[in-house]
């Protein structure tokens, strides 16, 4: 089959890394944006009073970029939908939190360790759950989320359902947001860049083959099980790291912060809206949804209808724009260079 399966969201082909004018200018835009993001915390004199709020939104946005981007590795590139991916979020959060409580090391430093712990956990789980395809795997991710949530709810050492209080970060009230913002920026960039590298690697090619047609991939000699487990485990890293920073930023850990289905839903939705299986997709999706959420909360207040809106948006996107923003734009030939990272 020479024609690429158009309606297949995971079928975006890997482009050779040749420079075109649009991709070069795209690169510039990305670099400029990243620099702006990096300089934002220092722009207090410009922004003035709402500065902390801006940093908070920025941090949240960057966090979701990291979460969605990581999810995309297993859910988009490999086509294995994980509906409980935030299990790693919580594990990372608790890991760094507990390290802080017992060893006094700041999560701002230990978040890579939290990420690693999440990876190991993902690896062990993946060994079991990636023995199946499709529906059974998806079901196992939901079960895993609820199971781990239940365990943490009853684990006295980790504070059970009441959770644990963490010591306050040693920064002035005025500047406290800044290190968290930078940590999340690093994590977001790390996550997206990691996705970019995977997309342009043989590993990524193998994953896409699995997403297209796993049986054919196996027949072609790809060790699908190893690839899937690798994708699943690696996708846990930045999620765990993000959880570590987030938990610390709240200064308390509680299962209900991390292990709810709503968070899993958001991660999935962001990738789908943005464009599953593309590198830029989750970023676009995360930014859009965080912005949308801010607007809707400020207008309508935070209530149960938010989750209805999430569901409705997901439904509409699934039925009419299954390729997401980036995928649909690309298909119609209107994808701007700065979003073309595949």
């Amino acid at each position, binding site marked *: 089959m020479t024609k690429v399966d158009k309606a297949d969201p995971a079928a975006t082909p890997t482009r050779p890394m040749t420079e075109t004018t649009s991709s070069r200018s795209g690169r510039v835009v990305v670099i400029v944006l990243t620099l702006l993001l990096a300089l934002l915390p220092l722009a207090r004199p410009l922004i003035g009073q709402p500065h902390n709020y801006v940093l908070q939104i920025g941090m949240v946005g960057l966090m979701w970029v990291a979460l969605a981007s990581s999810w995309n590795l297993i859910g988009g590139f490999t086509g294995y*939908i994980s*509906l409980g991916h935030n299990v790693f979020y919580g594990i990372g959060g608790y890991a760094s939190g507990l390290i802080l409580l017992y060893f006094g090391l700041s999560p701002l430093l230990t978040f890579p360790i939290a990420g690693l712990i999440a990876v190991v956990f993902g690896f062990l789980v993946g060994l079991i759950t990636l023995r199946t395809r499709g529906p059974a795997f998806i079901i196992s991710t939901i079960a895993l989320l609820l199971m781990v949530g239940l365990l943490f709810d009853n684990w006295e050492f980790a504070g059970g359902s009441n959770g644990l209080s963490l010591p306050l970060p040693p920064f002035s009230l005025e500047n406290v947001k800044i290190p968290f913002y930078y940590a999340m920026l690093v994590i977001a960039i790390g996550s997206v860049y990691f996705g970019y590298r995977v997309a342009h690697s043989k590993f990524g090619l193998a994953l896409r083959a699995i997403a297209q047609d*796993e049986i054919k991939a196996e027949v072609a000699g790809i060790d699908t099980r190893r690839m899937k487990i690798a994708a699943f485990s690696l996708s846990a890293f930045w999620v765990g790291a993000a959880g570590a920073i987030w938990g610390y930023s709240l200064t308390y850990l509680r299962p209900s912060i991390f292990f709810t289905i709503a968070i899993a839903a958001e991660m999935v939705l962001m990738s789908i809206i943005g464009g599953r299986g593309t590198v830029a997709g989750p970023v676009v999706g995360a930014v859009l949804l965080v912005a949308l959420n801010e607007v809707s909360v400020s207008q309508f207040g935070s209530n149960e209808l938010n*989750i*209805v809106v999430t569901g409705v948006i997901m439904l509409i996107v699934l039925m009419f724009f299954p390729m997401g923003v980036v995928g649909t734009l690309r298909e119609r030939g209107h994808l701007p260079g700065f979003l073309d990272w595949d």
Partner: protein
Amino acid sequence: MTHIIQVAILGLLLGGVYALMASGLTLMFGVMRIVNLAHGVFIIAASYLAFFLFTGPGWDPFLSLVVTMPVFFLLGLLVYRMFFPRIEESPRFGEMTVLLTFALALIVEGLLSYFFTGTFRSTSPSYATEAFLIGDLFIPKAQLYASITSLILLFALWGFLYFTRTGYAVRATMQNRTAAQIVGVNVRRISTLSFGIGMALAGASGSLISFLFPFFPNSHWRWIAILLSLIVLGGLGSLKGAIVGALFLAVAAAFVSDQFGPTWSPMTFFGALFLILLIRPRGLFGEKARVG
């Protein structure tokens, strides 16, 4: 010894109800390869319906079956028609059904939350707190009646599937969709009908669990995770597997609950899921590695 029998009986009684809940889910997967993540939320929605019939006109939850089953049957026909034919041709159909029903579940949960708030509800007919005493055994009336009703409904389902022309068509579609088409079965109609039946079973389940388990909008995640674990154990698409899985796991959960406390009872299902994935991924009665 009596204690063990006691626990086992309690487990079996609940198992009957779980089997009813899981059967609708299995039917949908078997006939249409739909993984319906919204099944739990529709069960809860039916519980709400039963609740309002109870607190309003004072209807016994068993009486509410007369309303919940037809209402959800029709709702099922509607939901199927609205969403599923459109994605039938999709190359990633399996995933699409998961994501679509996931979105549906979020929407329905949100609506239930919005209209009915997060307060725990349950219907409380008199038998909910009564029990039969047979020798040393304590048999709660509520569980017994619910279990008997579940059995009757499952029996009716069995009768439908094995003794009616349409039932044969449903089973044929479950076994080989293409074959069904070429012998003249209108698989679109059968799919719609099966979805309706599955929803009707969800509606019935909702009525029954309204007095067995206090519920609130978010509880459906626990249910769907349990039910899905159960049908993976039994083998996706196998009704026999769903029923066996339900009875077996419910008894196991009863023992877990007895030994370690009721909070751990859901863990039985999750643990069983991971165990079966480890040793026999296709489940007890499932077919060999089906591409998702």
